[in-house]
């Protein structure tokens, strides 16, 4: 069944603060094979003008993915997550995420459409510190294959 377009514009409650830790950043940098000391060594980060180690540019997905679960698993929306593929991902940065940040994400459904029998949903996570300083906005577009109303034609 196609997703209901009435969800477009719906904003979910802010997530509980996510505390960014040095060791989590190191784990993420290790997993993506990035040996840059700015992700591990506070001294190296400070030499580049950062107050603490920073996180790689795609690290905000850790926060936005968790936050978007409110939408993905919203029973009222009824997205079939077992058929979902990641179609696109966009980040707009005010500054890098860094260790010590306490980040809150507010997720909004930006768009819902049906294309070639696939449900396409775009969510936006506005990620800011608990003090309200914007850090990064993450937009994710997910495609649920063959769940739209036009499904079955192929």
């Amino acid at each position, binding site marked *: 069944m196609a997703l209901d377009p009435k969800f477009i514009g719906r904003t979910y409650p802010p997530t509980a603060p996510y505390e960014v830790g040095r060791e989590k950043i190191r784990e993420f940098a290790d997993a993506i094979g990035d040996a840059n000391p700015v992700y591990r060594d506070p001294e190296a980060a400070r030499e580049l003008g950062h107050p603490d180690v920073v996180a790689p540019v795609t690290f905000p997905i*850790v926060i936005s993915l968790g936050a978007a679960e409110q939408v993905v698993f919203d029973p009222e929306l009824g997205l079939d997550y077992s058929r979902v593929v990641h179609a696109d991902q966009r980040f707009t940065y005010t500054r890098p995420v860094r260790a010590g940040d306490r980040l809150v994400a507010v997720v909004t459904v930006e768009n819902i459409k049906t294309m070639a029998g696939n449900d396409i949903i775009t969510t936006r996570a506005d990620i800011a510190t608990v003090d309200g300083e914007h850090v990064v906005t993450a937009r994710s577009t997910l495609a649920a294959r063959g769940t739209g109303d036009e499904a079955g034609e192929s």
Partner: protein
Amino acid sequence: MIVGETHGLAAPRITRSTLALYAGASGDHNPVHIDTDACRAVGIPDVFAHGMLSMAYLGRLLTDWVPQERIRAYDVRFTAITPVNDTPVCTGTVTRIQGDCAHLDLKVALPDGTVTLTGSAVIALG
């Protein structure tokens, strides 16, 4: 940065261990990336890489090239899956300078020519 300037990065071979570690680090535990049995149960022959892993390699190309705080926007579209044990190659090219920003075209391709990701980035010129 000048228009036409191009940088490349050859990612390491993406093994099953790479995918397991990335699943743990990112929180994306979708079984299509880590569980061959679960894949076969739904007709997928084998696990394939998280699209975000390719985006991460391409992100490393960017941060090896420019100071990270100058990256204003980084957008990608996933166009094909990356099979396990493949070796993506990332490229980025400056396409235009507008005002105080450089605009980059980005791409990740497999050795057989399959383009798995296309994207763009906006870099403040400091």
